């Protein structure tokens, strides 16, 4: 359909506004914590700070918009969270000046930081506490790039909303909280005081959100009073009516449902800078009853619903991910905050979940072509082919969305982890590819794990050759191993050593969040925090999962395969000669490098020789992590995804036995090494399906396609069948990059002409021109190789 002028204008504003670092939240937070306040518990103080923020932050209603509310004072004004991590002046300088993903930082903002925010928070943020508590061995591994730490500057989020807000207003949540308070047993429950404090904090937050909505209603009425355009006046009055009604009460129609969700979204992301900044989850199913009712009563048309959704989409795009501090500020990262709208899949009773709103959402995605929110289709064997075909038509346009998930497998994964069937069917995927029981789970990704780096350290008997420091355990001189199995065992021991270090760190950090940085607002909307009187960070959720994300599986498989093949089986290369070639970064060893690359069975070719090694590595990683207990009465599981970390991990890893030069990116997700797969997409999918995806919480497979193989309708049928087959083989997720190498090269030469070129990176899409040169090169290489 034609896009309305209103939407075109709002979309343009969203695309053209340069992200700005807003000091608003940091200033209000500092003001609040400077004040004298009554002696209250930590959760209540956090709740009061939340209330202070929502009471004092600017209320923004942009001209023409139908869904209102911004995280900052205006679109793309991005708040910071100094109580978690405080930006230094040099961080601000980098953010303002870096070429990619910049945030404008005005001189006034810098002054506010210099004079107020930094002096108050420096040395007192949670990040400071975390680094104080981490051991030397943890720091050594972290600095060497063996793993990253998600929680050092963003709060555990990784959660998605279910359908509860569409049935229940915040007044009713408050009543639930009061009823839980009234049930507290101070005589027999030793935790009664803690529960009481947490519940009081939730109550304050519930009131705060209602009041925040009312502030928007009041502002809308003021604007309506001054409005001379009669249509806009009516709209503003309607906005006021809606904001007085939700989130206090359950939504009555489609428009109110969207506005209600948006207030909750703002609440969660203003309270803390949660990772994977929250999303509504199964939006088509949540909205379908309102859509049907509206259509039946004549109060809604498909066009008005579409316009509301387009306005909703723009609200997501107006919120860039909060910029990081410290060393990572120099890396560009991304503006995307990983909200992932789920479409399709199954209903809670297990039947086909595709409905009219599913197709409507796909239209919105295609028309909006925005970075945020991200979107996915959840493919169940019960869904019609037509649904996937429709999504394939959008994938073909090369915009990297939607990504494609196996809904039936996700249910199996969640049930294996101990969720009830009903909770599993209401779940889905979020962030990049992580599964969760929506509305009921804290599934916390704690960091990426650099598997190839562990191999490098194993090849040096516990020493990191980059720094010369001994950061691992001694597992034996590599020249001494008589058989490949012995070498593999040494690797596994080394990996377990680093996983132990990571878990020890996690156990401290999780408790720091529980004790110092509770999230009473988020806790209101995640079951069973109210019933248990426990915070989201303290095990209040019904399910609590901790993940460590493995990176470089394809690279590691090829490295292991090369060592097995050339050093042990064929003896075409001695271990000493291999180590020399690696130490020289293959300079003067070109022949050796070619041999390692071209004469080694490699992952991604449906070759059991290489793929069985991949399975052994998968198994070792699984055994090292799955089933460990976290601090929230929950369990550790694995997933295999990199975001962009395979680039960072590559940059800290020297030359490797797969022929990779020092510093080059590792393979990403469970995709093969770039260029190692030579037998086309079916062979890649077969290789990838050989691991047991059911025992993960998500794997990421990136498949590149050139436009030539997606030209006709019949080509799209083939793509649908390719997806169906991968899912029949129990693959978890697949995403597609569609752009020819010539286009990408042109975009690199003349970025100004390709500002809107979006490509799939790894679990998310990004503007090609915003990527670092290394990532751009990698995507071009990936694309060129796709000329089958």
């Amino acid at each position, binding site marked *: 359909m034609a896009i309305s002028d209103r939407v075109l204008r709002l979309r343009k504003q969203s695309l053209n506004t340069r992200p700005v670092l807003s000091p608003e939240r940091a200033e209000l937070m500092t003001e609040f914590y400077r004040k004298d306040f009554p002696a209250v518990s930590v959760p209540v103080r956090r709740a009061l700070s939340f209330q202070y923020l929502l009471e004092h932050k600017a209320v923004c209603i942009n001209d023409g918009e139908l869904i209102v509310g911004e995280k900052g004072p205006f679109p793309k004004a991005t708040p910071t969270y100094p109580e978690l991590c405080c930006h230094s002046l040099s961080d601000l300088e980098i953010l303002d000046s870096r070429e990619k993903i910049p945030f404008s930082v005005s001189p006034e903002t810098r002054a506010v930081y210099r004079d107020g925010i930094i002096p108050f928070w420096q040395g007192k943020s949670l990040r400071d506490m975390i680094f104080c508590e981490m051991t030397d061995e943890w720091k050594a591994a972290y600095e060497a790039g063996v793993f990253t730490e998600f929680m050092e500057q963003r709060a555990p989020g990784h959660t998605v909303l279910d359908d509860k807000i569409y049935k229940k207003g915040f007044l009713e949540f408050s009543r639930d909280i009061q009823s839980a308070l009234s049930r507290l047993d101070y005589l027999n429950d030793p935790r009664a005081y803690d529960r009481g404090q947490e519940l009081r904090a939730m109550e304050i937050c519930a009131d705060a959100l209602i009041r925040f909505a009312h502030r928007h209603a009041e502002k809308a009425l003021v604007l309506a009073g001054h409005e001379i355009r009669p249509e806009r006046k009516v709209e503003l009055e309607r906005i006021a009516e809606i904001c007085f009604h939700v989130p206090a009460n359950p939504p009555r129609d489609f428009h109110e449902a969207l506005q209600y969700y948006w207030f909750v979204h703002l609440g969660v992301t203003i309270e803390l800078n949660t990772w994977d900044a929250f999303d509504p989850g199964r939006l088509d199913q949540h909205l379908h009853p309102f859509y049907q009712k509206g259509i039946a009563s004549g109060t809604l048309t498909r066009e008005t619903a579409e316009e509301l959704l387009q306005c909703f989409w723009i609200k997501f795009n107006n919120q860039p991910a909060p910029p990081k501090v410290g060393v990572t500020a120099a890396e560009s990262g991304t503006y995307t905050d990983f909200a992932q709208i789920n479409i399709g899949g199954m209903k809670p009773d297990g039947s086909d979940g595709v409905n009219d709103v599913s197709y409507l959402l796909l239209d919105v995605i295609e028309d909006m072509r925005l970075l945020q929110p991200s979107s996915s289709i959840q493919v169940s064997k019960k869904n019609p082919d037509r649904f996937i075909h429709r999504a394939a038509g959008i994938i073909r346009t090369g915009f990297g969305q939607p990504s494609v998930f196996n809904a039936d497998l996700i249910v199996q994964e969640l049930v294996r982890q101990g969720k009830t069937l009903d909770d599993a069917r209401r779940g889905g995927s979020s962030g990049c590819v992580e599964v969760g029981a929506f509305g009921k789970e804290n599934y916390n990704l704690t960091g990426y794990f650099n598997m190839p780096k562990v191999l490098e350290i194993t090849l040096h008997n516990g020493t990191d050759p980059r720094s010369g420091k001994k950061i691992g355990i001694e597992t034996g001189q590599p020249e001494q191993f008589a058989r490949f199995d012995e070498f593999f065992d040494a690797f596994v021991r080394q990996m377990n050593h680093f996983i132990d270090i990571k878990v020890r760190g996690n156990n401290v950090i999780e408790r720091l969040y529980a004790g110092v940085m509770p999230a009473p607002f988020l806790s209101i909307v995640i079951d069973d925090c109210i019933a248990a009187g426990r915070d989201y960070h303290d095990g209040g959720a019904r399910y609590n999962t901790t993940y460590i994300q493995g990176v470089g599986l394809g690279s590691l498989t090829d490295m292991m395969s090369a060592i097995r093949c050339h050093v042990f089986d064929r003896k075409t290369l001695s271990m000493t000669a291999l180590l020399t070639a690696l130490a020289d970064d293959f300079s003067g060893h*070109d*022949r050796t490098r*070619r*041999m390692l690359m*071209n*004469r080694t069975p490699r992952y991604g070719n*449906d070759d059991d020789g290489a793929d069985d090694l991949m399975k052994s590595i998968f198994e070792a990683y699984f055994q090292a992590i799955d089933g460990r207990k976290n601090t929230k009465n929950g369990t550790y599981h694995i997933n295999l995804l990199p975001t962009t970390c395979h680039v960072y991990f590559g940059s800290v890893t020297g030359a490797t036995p797969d022929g990779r030069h020092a510093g080059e990116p590792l393979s990403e997700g469970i995709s093969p090494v770039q260029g190692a797969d030579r*037998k*086309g*997409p*079916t*062979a890649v999918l*077969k290789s990838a399906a050989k691991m047991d995806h059911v025992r993960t919480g998500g794997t990421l497979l990136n498949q590149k396609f050139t436009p030539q*193989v997606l*030209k*006709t*309708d*019949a*080509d799209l*049928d*083939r793509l649908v*069948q*390719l997806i*169906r*087959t991968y899912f*029949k*083989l129990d693959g978890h997720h697949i995403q597609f990059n569609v752009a020819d190498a010539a286009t990408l090269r042109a975009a690199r030469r003349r970025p100004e002409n390709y500002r809107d070129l979006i490509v799939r990176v790894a679990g998310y899409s990004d503007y090609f021109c915003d990527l670092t040169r290394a990532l751009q090169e990698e995507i071009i290489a990936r694309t060129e190789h796709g000329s*089958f």
Partner: protein
Amino acid sequence: MMLSYIISDMESGIIFDIKKYSIHDGPGIRTTVFFKGCPLSCWWCHNPESQRICIEKLYAAGRCIGCGDCVAACPENAIREMESGLFTDPEKCLQCGSCADICVADASEMAGRKLSVSQVMAEIEKDTAFYDASCGGITFSGGEPLAQPDFLSALLIACKDRRIHTTLDTSGFSEWKAMDLIRHHVDLFLFDLKLMDDEKHRLFTGVSNRRILENLKALSAGGHRIRIRIPVIPGITDTDDNIAAVGIFAAALPSVPPIDLLPYHHFAAAKYERLGNVYRLMDMRPPAAESLTRLADLLSGLGLTVNTERVISHGDF
């Protein structure tokens, strides 16, 4: 049945490529098996490495790292290092493959491998799940598969034993005996018709079209499913006279087949270079879209079903 299966399994032949996710050579997702060796030598051949029915050396100078391993490895001393790269003396080279075996840079490669039926079937069967999901299967192409009739027959039987859909992409140039041997195991023929004028056919393909046309008539009379494919080569096959003649011939067949127009493309030039062969159509450009439309209209006017996309949808089979 079992005995014939075992015997045919021992057949072997020369294959130059097995390509997966082949989506433009028959219905669904397919694996295309390329036979080496062809009695024709069309000027526009896209797979020049498929013409000779033997294993032969390919050399990609751009990949060569100059390590000299192949010079040392050649038992015939046929390889010399020149300033422009390596030169293999065709008089001395016995195509033994020692150079390709030793070449870690994949600069020297052998076009063609001798494979047994069970080796080919093992590769084919890896993608069974994809054929199942898409009503796809196997396409035998080349080269000319009918130039190795016993091997082709054994592979077709093995596919049908496994309930895999079979397509044969053929020039149609073979003795009827060979065609008759395999035709009942082929679910779909992609049958090339290039030039109706026999003199021109001889000039541009090296053989007469008489046998090709007879085979086509006999297959059509036998009730086999056929699609006629015309390679559209500017100035050679794309004349109105030629296309009209193909159309009239097709329309008179016992069972009138649909026609695919396959536009010429230029991608093969590099292959000729690697083979050390001359490419006679170096300056040829692909046909214009209008020219394809004109030819399609001409054929439609004769009451034929025409497809100009390389892609074929299910309804067409």
